[in-house]
C-alpha cells in the first residue's frame, strides 16, 4: 500500500514549514502575507502548467514537483530574511518613519527654521550697516516700515514654508521607498495638524515701542490656520496625483503570451 502523502497534504506541510521558517526569522507579518499570497498564485500557475502538459490527465499532475520548483521553505525564508535585512531603517519601519517621525521631527524642524530665520533677519536688519561701514560705504537708511516688512515676510514664510517643505520631504521619502500614498498622506496629515495649530502674532516695532513676536497654539483655529494646514495637505495630494498619473502612464497590456513573445523577440 502506498503511504506517501497526498498532494494536498504535502502542499499544506510545505506551506506550514514556510510559515514556521518565516516566523522564526522574524519577517514582518505584512511581508509574510504578501509572500504567501504570491507563492499561492505561483503554485496555481504551476498546477495549471502541469495540467496543460499532461493534456487532460489530471491524476498525473505531480504536486510535489510544483513545490519542488518553488524551492525549499528554509531557502525561501532565508532569501526573504536576507532581502529584508538589506533594506534601510526608513524602509523597514514605516510606522516609525511616517507616524512617529513627523510627530517628533516637525516641532524640532520648526524651532530650527525659526532660529535660522531669526539669525538671517538679525544679520540683514542689524548687521547690514556694520558691513557697509566695514566696506567704507554709507550705511543704508532702513526705515521702521522696511524693517517691519522684512520681519512680516519672515513670519509669513514661517507659517507655510517649513510645513510645506517637511511634507515634501516625507512624500519624497515615501516615493523613494515605494511606500505609496498611505504613508505619505499620514505623514502630511500630521504635518498639517501641527501647521494648523500654529498661531503667530507679531507686533511691529516703532520709535516708541519694541517689536513683539508671539507663537502658540491656535484655539479656536482661524482662517489663516486652515490655510496653513492646507499647504502640507496639498503637497500630499499633489504626490498622490503624481503617483497615480505615473502609474496610469506605465500601464501595459498583461497576458502571459504577449510577455513571452516580447521576451523571445528581444
Amino acid at each position: 500500500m502506498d503511504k506517501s502523502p497526498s498532494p494536498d497534504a504535502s502542499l499544506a506541510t510545505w506551506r506550514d514549514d514556510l510559515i514556521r521558517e518565516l516566523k522564526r526569522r522574524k519577517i514582518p507579518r505584512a511581508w509574510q502575507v504578501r509572500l504567501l499570497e504570491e507563492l499561492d498564485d505561483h503554485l496555481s500557475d504551476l498546477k495549471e502548467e502541469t495540467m496543460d502538459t499532461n493534456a487532460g490527465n489530471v491524476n498525473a499532475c505531480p504536486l510535489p514537483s510544483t513545490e519542488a520548483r518553488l524551492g525549499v521553505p528554509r531557502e525561501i525564508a532565508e532569501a526573504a530574511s536576507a532581502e529584508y535585512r538589506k533594506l534601510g531603517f526608513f524602509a523597514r519601519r514605516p510606522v516609525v518613519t511616517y507616524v512617529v517621525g513627523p510627530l517628533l521631527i516637525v516641532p524640532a524642524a520648526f524651532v530650527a527654521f525659526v532660529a535660522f530665520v531669526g539669525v538671517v533677519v538679525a544679520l540683514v536688519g542689524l548687521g547690514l550697516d556694520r558691513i557697509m561701514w566695514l566696506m567704507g560705504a554709507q550705511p543704508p537708511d532702513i526705515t521702521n516700515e522696511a524693517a517691519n516688512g522684512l520681519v512680516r515676510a519672515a513670519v509669513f514664510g514661517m507659517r507655510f514654508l517649513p510645513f510645506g517643505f517637511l511634507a515634501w520631504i516625507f512624500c519624497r521619502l515615501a516615493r523613494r521607498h515605494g511606500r505609496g500614498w498611505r504613508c505619505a498622506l499620514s505623514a502630511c496629515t500630521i504635518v498639517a495638524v501641527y501647521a494648523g495649530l500654529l498661531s503667530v502674532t507679531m507686533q511691529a516695532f516703532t520709535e516708541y515701542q519694541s517689536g513683539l513676536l508671539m507663537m502658540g497654539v491656535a484655539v479656536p483655529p482661524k482662517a489663516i490656520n486652515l490655510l496653513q494646514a492646507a499647504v502640507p495637505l496639498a503637497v500630499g495630494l499633489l504626490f498622490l496625483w503624481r503617483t497615480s498619473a505615473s502609474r496610469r502612464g506605465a500601464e501595459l497590456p498583461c497576458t502571459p503570451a504577449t510577455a513571452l513573445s516580447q521576451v523571445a523577440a528581444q
Partner: protein
Amino acid sequence: MTTRKTNPDFLNGVPELLLLELLARRGMYGYEIVQAIGAATAGRLEFGEGCIYPVLHRLEAEGCLASKREECGGRTRIVYRLTVAGKKRLAASRASWRQVAAAIETVLQGGADGQVAVA
C-alpha cells in the same frame, strides 16, 4: 520530495539585474517573470522559483519597482513595473555587471598578466 537547489550565484546580485532588465521591457507578475527568465536564458539558470519574490519585494520597498493588482488571465495578480528609480538602478547595475564581466574575461584570457599573455 526532490527539491530544486538554488544556484548560489543566482542569489548574489544577479537576480536583481535580471529582474530589472526583464521588467524594463514590460510589467509582469511573478510566474511570468520566472517564465521570462527561463526563456531568456534557455533554462540555464536553476533556482527555487519562490526565491524571486523576496527580491521583488525588496526592490519594491526601495522604490525601484511599483506593484499593482490587476486582472490577468481571469485571476487577480500582483504585476510589477519598473519605476524611474528602477531605471537608474538598472543602468548602474548594467554598467557594473559589464565591468565585472570584462575584468573576469581579461583574467580568464590571461590579459592581466603580461607574462601569461605573451606565453
